[in-house]
């Protein structure tokens, strides 16, 4: 979808408004309250029926970075609508991002193997990047992939492999050269999750979402599963993160929070309290700013730029604002803000409490606020690299 330059207009052009209405329609027709409850019971933030419905309308393919009709703009609009509606979307988010990576750096064979399953709304993808001892410092990954004839043998362990229990595909960051500088000895693989030697153990979280630890014991794979270049894993990761940060959800999480809190506050009369009103207004402002920053990020990508830094800025701003909002609203709800989903008397039927547990996750997952601030300080503000970092 092309964005006209020149005219002053913050209103989306009619085709984009129609696209937005279509997404809203699909969500309304597909996702039931039971689906939304289910994600909180299972911890799997994914809605297969929604993914299939989006695929049937061609909307997943249209949104995939580099593949779609309008790519970054449609990608932003799709995930912004899903996020505002508070429907399960984490599974779809990773799948769409990795589809973009496969499209960008994958071989023709990989694209044939992998893309149809994602674009059809059938397959999810999980990412094995962090390890028990390497989180923010991803380049220190120690999971080993060793040459074995024409193929590879992989051994190691990964943490936070969210969706591994539900995904068909796994993206795996491995060390392939022990002698090279740490960023240059990494290789990315994309594998079927049912490859022998992979085991998945659940990791439960305060924020409801289930994630996993995954273990790799003599996992034997062919060369055809290397994603990007051998020892080029860091570059592949850069492509993935550039697609992820900023536009694929995570930038307007406080919109459903404000909507649910506001409905409860109106129903109870709490909305008449000036402290409540002031804070609701401040959250509405932050929501507006987060949306504008996200639209800006998407627009830079649409013009062919790589908006990594703008995405970092948006991610930090939006997730920190979400933490603040969830904290404020839980406090404003008083003891009712402590009660969990569907408990009698729970503020906003328990959604306030759920957000208060989920919000702290968002300033960590997908790059902590501190790592993003490092990037902004060094690459946007041009400050000298800090002591202690190579």
């Amino acid at each position, binding site marked *: 979808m092309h*964005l*006209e*330059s*020149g*005219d*002053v*207009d*913050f*209103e*989306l*052009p009619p085709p984009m408004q129609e696209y937005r209405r279509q997404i809203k329609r699909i969500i309304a027709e597909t996702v039931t309250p039971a689906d939304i409850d289910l994600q909180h019971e299972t911890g799997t933030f994914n809605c297969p029926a929604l993914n299939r419905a989006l695929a049937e309308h061609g909307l997943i393919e249209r949104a995939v970075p580099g593949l779609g009709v309008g790519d970054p703009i449609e990608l932003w609009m799709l995930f912004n609508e899903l996020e*505002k509606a508070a429907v399960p979307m984490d599974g779809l988010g990773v799948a769409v991002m990795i589809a973009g990576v496969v499209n960008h750096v994958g071989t023709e064979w990989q694209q044939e193997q992998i893309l149809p399953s994602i674009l059809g709304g059938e397959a999810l993808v999980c990412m094995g990047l962090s390890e028990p001892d390497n989180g923010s410092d991803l380049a220190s990954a120690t999971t080993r992939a060793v040459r074995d004839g024409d193929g590879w043998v992989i051994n190691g362990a990964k943490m936070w492999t969210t969706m591994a229990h539900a995904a068909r595909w796994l993206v795996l960051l491995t060390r392939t050269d022990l002698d090279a500088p740490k960023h240059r000895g990494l290789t990315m693989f994309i594998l079927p999750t049912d490859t022998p030697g992979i085991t998945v153990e659940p990791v439960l979280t305060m924020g409801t979402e289930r994630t996993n630890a995954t273990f790799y014991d003599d996992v034997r794979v062919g060369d055809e599963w290397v994603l990007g270049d051998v020892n080029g894993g860091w570059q592949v990761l850069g492509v993935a993160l550039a697609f992820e940060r900023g536009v694929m959800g995570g930038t*307007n999480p406080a*919109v459903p929070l*404000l*909507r649910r809190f*506001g409905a409860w506050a*109106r129903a109870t*009369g709490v*909305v*008449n*309290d*000036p402290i409540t*009103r*002031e804070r*609701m*207004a*401040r959250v*509405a*402002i932050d*929501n*507006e*700013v*987060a949306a*504008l*920053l996200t*639209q*800006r990020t998407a*627009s830079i990508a*649409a*013009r062919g730029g790589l908006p990594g830094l703008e995405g970092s*800025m*948006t991610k*930090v*701003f939006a997730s920190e604002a979400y933490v603040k909002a969830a904290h404020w609203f839980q406090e404003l709800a008083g003891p009712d803000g402590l009660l969990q989903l569907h408990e009698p008397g729970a503020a906003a039927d328990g959604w306030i409490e759920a957000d208060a547990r989920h919000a702290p996750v968002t300033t960590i997952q997908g790059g902590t606020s*501190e790592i*993003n*601030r*490092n990037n*902004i*300080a*060094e690459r*946007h*503000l*041009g*400050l*000298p*690299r*800090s*002591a202690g970092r190579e």
Partner: protein
Amino acid sequence: MSVDLELSDDQTLIRGLFTAFFAREAPTSVARASEPLGFDPVLWERIREIGAPGMGAPAVCGGGGAALGDLVVVTEALGRSIAPVPLVEHLVAARLLGTPDVVAGDVLATLAVRPATVRGRWRLVPAGAVGDVVVGLDGDELVSVRSTPPGKAPANHASAPLADRDARTGAREVIGTRAEFERARDEWKVLLAGALVGIASAALDLGVAYAKSRQQFGVPIGSFQAVQHGLADLPALVDGARLLAHKAAWAGERTEPGRCDADDNDVTDFSALASMAFLFATDAAARATDRSLHFHGGYGFSAEYDIQLYYRRARGWPLVLDDPGRECLRLADRLWGPPTGAAAMHAPGER
């Protein structure tokens, strides 16, 4: 600014012109020299020469007919230089008055952003110390009053040319209604938001430059993460405030009724966006100047360094309206309707 959120070609041109103009005519030494009054008549003369005072007034009155978004670009450039001229107020007043002397800038016009007291007194009017014409609300009438300005201001935080003015003494003319006053005040909020974006952005640049050059423990202090992270939060605030000011300006030029759907994060109502832009830019300027000043160490609060000039204006320029918390309550009224029942007694208002 277009839907891809970049400045239009015209706005880019305006930005270049005014950034160069203020850099040349109003380095911070001009703001410093203008204290304590906070007005430089020579700079105003330069502003007049380039036709800036009337650029937002309708073309039929001989004005430039510039859209609010173009004026936001101008006021951001002014804020970067903390230029001691009341261009924000004059631009808004000139759009209302449209008289040749105001459009030309031969007389200085300003806006009393708070209504007159029951005795007809406008308290601490921005540019009240120097404005020849004050436009403001008296009762339910929007009036313009021409009278001799006092030429001096009570000593104040921002070294701003504030002064009390009388709404009923002088050449008084009724020029509109309360609704038109509120519209003008919304425009003022948006243009001031632009100026505050300029302050925030300049403060960030000062902080970054200082952190790169100041050495402690043998390294630039900008290599310490405590300093880096304090500065790294600021670009999102500056950029976000700028985007929001431009969105509000865009909404102010629309003829269609705006939307106020905070539930879907879909707000295009001018008055709501004007409040949002004002509040967010106020916060951005406060935080950027606060952190930048702090990272200057002792030099931050020494009179010799510029950051303290920005710090005081970041607070002084917006506070002439009201406590930002009360402005939040007005925004809440706009978004969700006024409060009901006993709590309504605590809500602010001018009724």
